[in-house]
């Protein structure tokens, strides 16, 4: 029996997430895994926006910021449960993406890049400057999600690292499932069509403005959820989550791993989250080595790590 690409991708993801802990030498690796998953969720959103629809955003960390600070602020000021605060953050991010996306998605290529960059910087500035509300650059505390306690009462005692590993791991699988559903759906086809040829997509009836906006909103919700999960597991958040570097990281992870494929992009997130940890042996040259690796990948494997590797395997088969 031949598996569909969707089933195969999900199966690989589930197995990797479920079996990796067997190889963890210490509890610390649960924490690293959970960080990979947080990035993987944001990057899956980038796959929808950039890989499917061909639109670039250099400001998606802004939405991660909204998601993160929703979890910090809403429980304190609105008395909302942190879990519901995450939902609220996603709704606000989606609305924000809708309002911001309407005018700026008319722009193409690097004009769109610069406009989204502006949006990200704006959010980051607000978080830095509204000290009374956000604590400014010092950051602020985030209340506990409370789910781990509930699980413990139910007889499932997990360490903090284990809990976030499994919680974020499940979120990654759900996120990937949604993105893979979209890929082969009528909407996904229209997105990929406008990526391939905007003029042809319009002439077959695709309302390009509307479709781009949908992709932008969906990817913003992914980024927002990613930011919320980061805030909730760290129980502390600083404006860096909305910073320019974080936006660049998301795009880099997606492009490095292969922006056209969900699995590739998640692989990219894993590589770029792990690499700095591995590269600490290079001490102060860490950033240089990281930059060099990225340049070499883009020069020699322009489609991204995973698609290039898979292609090489397939060629071996023939």
């Amino acid at each position, binding site marked *: 029996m031949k598996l569909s690409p969707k089933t195969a991708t999900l199966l690989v993801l589930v197995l990797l997430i479920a079996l990796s802990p067997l190889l963890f030498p210490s509890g610390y690796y649960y924490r690293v895994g959970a960080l990979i998953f947080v990035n993987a969720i944001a990057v899956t959103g980038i796959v929808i926006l950039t890989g499917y629809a061909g639109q670039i955003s250099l400001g998606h960390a802004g939405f991660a910021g909204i998601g993160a600070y929703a979890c910090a602020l809403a429980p304190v000021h609105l008395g909302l449960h942190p879990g519901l605060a995450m939902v609220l953050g996603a709704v606000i991010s989606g609305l924000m993406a809708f309002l911001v996306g309407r005018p700026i998605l008319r722009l193409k290529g690097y004009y769109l890049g610069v406009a989204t960059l502006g949006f990200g910087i704006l959010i980051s500035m607000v978080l830095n400057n509204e000290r009374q509300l956000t604590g400014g650059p010092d950051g602020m505390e985030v209340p506990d999600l409370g789910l781990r306690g509930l699980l413990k009462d139910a007889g499932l005692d997990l360490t903090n690292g284990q809990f976030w590993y499994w919680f974020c791991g499940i979120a990654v699988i759900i996120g990937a499932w949604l993105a893979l559903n979209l890929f082969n759906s*009528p*909407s996904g*086809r229209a997105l*990929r069509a406008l*990526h*391939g040829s905007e003029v042809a997509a319009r002439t*077959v009836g695709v309302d390009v403005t509307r479709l781009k906006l949908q992709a932008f909103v969906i990817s913003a919700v992914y980024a927002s959820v990613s930011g919320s999960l980061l805030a909730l597991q760290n129980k502390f958040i600083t404006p860096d989550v909305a910073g320019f570097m974080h936006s660049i990281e998301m795009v880099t992870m997606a492009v490095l791993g292969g922006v056209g494929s969900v699995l590739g992009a998640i692989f990219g997130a894993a590589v770029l989250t792990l690499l700095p940890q591995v590269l600490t042996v290079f001490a102060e040259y860490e950033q240089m080595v990281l930059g060099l690796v990225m340049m070499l990948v883009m020069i020699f494997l322009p489609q991204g790590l995973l698609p290039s590797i898979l292609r090489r395997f397939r060629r071996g088969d023939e």
Partner: protein
Amino acid sequence: MSALLTVEGLGISFGGLKAVDEVGFAVRPGEIVSIIGPNGAGKTTLFNMISGVYLPGRGRVTLNGEDVTGMEPHLLAARGLSRTFQNLQIFQSMTVLENVMAGFHLKERGPVLADLFNLPSSRRRAAEAASGAIELLARVGLDKAAGREAGNLSYGALKRLEIARALALSPRILLLDEPAAGCNAVETEEIDHLIAEVARSGVAILLVEHDMKMVMRISNHVVVLDHGQKIAEGDPAKISRDPAVIAAYLGTEAADAEG
């Protein structure tokens, strides 16, 4: 029968140059109208204005009694206007089947949430588009290539793929921009038959084509452009005798063909 598409006094200028000026004609259902003219005569520009890709500077386009001048392409598509492109506009990294399925967009589209959650309604819409697309691929002889990435197809096959995608809209009027360009004699004849068959089913066809034999064979009506202006129009027999046309276009072309 009354006209499906009427073009009146249509014109556009690019930096002071009148690329198309005061062009008018009409196309009735089931009729094949060809637009011919030397390179740079403004044929593709005219197509781009009719199909909403360019905003016309002057004039009026009426589709089925409705003024659609400057209307966006996706709205024209919903009103039954479909087109192909001279310089191919294929969705390169999608499969051949997916390219044609994209042509079913107006029939298969639905709420994006249904698509995200892979609801039965979404699957049903996609399945209908897929079966329709397979039928169309068989019609243009590409059914065996359905699973291949479109970018890997030969030029002639891509031309037919574009026609299949345009037909997926079930158009009332089909604009074909040089459908036989770069195709060999056999392929040209196949496209020729396909166009005639589509026209017989009641679809109006507006054709830009350089292959004069094909134009003269299948057209009901021919419009001749030169330097953006209409210099003649009429049935193929009349056009091939028109002195202005021979001077502007057929003169050199016919001499080349016979020499």
